[in-house]
């Protein structure tokens, strides 16, 4: 039972990260029907920004808590700026083009950003400081779940709750929902669709940056390539949950995290990916639009 609990919590942590990144994929897809393959790179850039900022702040001898509080917003703002700019440069000029064109543009952007960081930084793995504080009361449970994992789960939950509320209750959220339902109609009733799309990219990138900082601090190392695998897994989570659906992305992330964790725990880590993708195939056979794909009204 203890083993089950450990695997459950491990899967929850992993799934929360997947969900945070998957939200970016699903929001963008919901609005402009584009799979933003450069999204994983935003996650990586968020982590790199945090590494640089925290390195500078650590020079001043500040305590870990305050470094995290200053680093996270900067990484989020920086990544959002990247997301905003990518949309402006790579996707907006292709707005009316066939769907394949922006997709290829997205893949190109992903390769460009990876190589840009490779050249501007380094190909080596870099140590990432443990920004997440160690809580004293978690000491006794560290065999099952440690502080950084607790932080990841709680932060992810808070961010996702905030996002859900934002989409549901704000003017911009309403505009997003309208745009996702029918772009032309939204335009006709006076929604500034360009702004809505930009905002979607900004929010998605911010979530990816939060994920990047959290997981980099948890595993303690980064390089220019981390966005690729995280991106692929998060994309899988988004499809699993139903791409275009916000609750679907959250659920998809968690389901994927648990599947991997339990497959490793009870079968073999050799088959971790086999189980994850077999589940994806199964779900897509029986529910082609994903677990929550059909639900209307939650689409963004």
């Amino acid at each position, binding site marked *: 039972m203890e083993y089950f609990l450990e695997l459950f919590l491990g899967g929850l942590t992993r799934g929360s990260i997947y969900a945070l990144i998957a939200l970016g994929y699903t929001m963008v897809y919901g609005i402009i029907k584009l799979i933003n393959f450069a999204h994983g790179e935003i996650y990586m850039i968020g982590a790199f920004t945090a590494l640089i900022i925290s390195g500078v702040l650590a020079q001043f001898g500040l305590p870990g808590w305050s470094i995290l509080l200053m680093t996270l917003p900067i990484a989020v703002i920086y990544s959002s700026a990247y997301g905003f700019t990518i949309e402006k440069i790579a996707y907006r000029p292709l707005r009316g083009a066939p769907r394949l064109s922006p997709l290829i543009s997205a893949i190109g952007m992903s390769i460009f950003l990876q190589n840009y960081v490779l050249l501007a930084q380094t190909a080596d793995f870099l*140590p990432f400081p443990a920004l997440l504080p160690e809580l004293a009361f978690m000491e006794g449970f560290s065999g099952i779940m440690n502080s950084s994992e607790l932080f990841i789960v709680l932060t992810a939950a808070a961010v996702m709750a905030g996002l859900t509320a934002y989409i549901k209750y704000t003017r911009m959220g309403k505009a997003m929902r309208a745009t996702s339902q029918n772009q032309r109609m939204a335009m006709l009733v006076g929604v500034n669709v360009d702004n809505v799309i930009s905002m979607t990219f900004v929010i998605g990138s911010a979530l990816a940056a939060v994920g990047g900082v959290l997981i980099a601090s948890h595993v303690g190392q980064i390089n220019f390539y981390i966005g690729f695998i995280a991106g692929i897994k998060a994309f899988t989570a988004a499809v699993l949950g139903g791409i275009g659906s916000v609750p679907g992305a959250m659920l998809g992330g968690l389901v994927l995290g648990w599947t991997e964790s339990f497959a490793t725990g009870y079968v073999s880590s050799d088959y971790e990916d086999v189980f994850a993708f077999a589940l994806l195939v199964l779900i897509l056979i029986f529910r082609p639009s994903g677990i929550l794909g059909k639900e209307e009204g939650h689409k963004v």
Partner: protein
Amino acid sequence: MIKKLTSAVAVAAGIGLIGIGVAQADEIVFGVPGAHTGDLASYGLPTINAAKLVADKYNAKGGVLGRMIKVVPQDDQCKPELAVNAAMKLVSEEATVAMGHICSGATKAALPVYGDSKIVVMSPSATNPPLTTSGDYPNFFRTIARDDAQGQLAASFTIEKLGAKKIAVIHDKGDYGKGFAEFAKAAVDGSGAATSVLFEGVTPGAVDYSAVVQKVKHSGADAVIFGGYHPEASKIVMAMRKKNLKIPFVSDDGVKDPTFIKVAGVFAEGVFATGPQDSSGNPLYAVALAEHKKAFNAEPGAFFFNAYSAALALMNAIEKAGSTDYDKIVKALKTEYVETPVGKIKFDSIGDAEGVGFDVYMVANGVFVQAE
């Protein structure tokens, strides 16, 4: 074309046979095939330097058996097809012995050509086990330890020195990491003193490894052997330590890298890793190093000391054999000890150098030191 090549080899071999009487008072042709251009050139070029230094040393004393040594490099770029060509050229140049090739794949492709012409080949760098263990290449020797020796060493160290009874073996599913892990597992299970309780591959680059760490914990293992490279190793070690799993972590020379310590930081402390034996204490090591610095005004590159040792071993064998006859050289290599930078060595029945191997290192205060 094939016919032409075959006849060329036949002619070359024929000339070789006739040439023996003539060449006796002539030079000893010392072939040095390997990667001298291309992206792996950094592995091959130091071996030419080593061959030249050893040849100069012998020539200054009047050569071997009264004959001068002539170094003949041949480039193969570590490509098997070019390696065969390089071997044919050396055969046609009547090479007495050859030191090379550099890469295991190229070596394997070229060996039959030398074998047909009865030329002894000694590699300073080809670690692939079947080159010697298969028994297909009786003319092949090497001054570097085999890949499987590393797995065996890791296993015996974990069992004997660390006293582990139940060992979890993890790898990164790659050729190198999985190969090491399989050798280690076989050695653990064959030891009788311990058993492997887990054998699993992890996906390189995965977001985290907490599930596999929990699995190790519940397997009741009292040590972990990991085959793979340092990025995964540091993630697994960090996850283990954070989960209060303090059992020893033993890995391979893909982990014995300063980057591992840089990334894993305090968590790297106490981690064990096997790596090429430290031979810097040997007197000849310092001699070879000084000669290289004097001649080339630079630090020697990869495999320089293995190559220097191979050149010494080959020349010594010719000298001890008192002839350039293939059978006599092979016998001398297997029976006569020779002092080299990698230690005092002779070769076993399959052609591996005895006394050359790996050592176990441990991270202590941020550096790898030899483990006791």
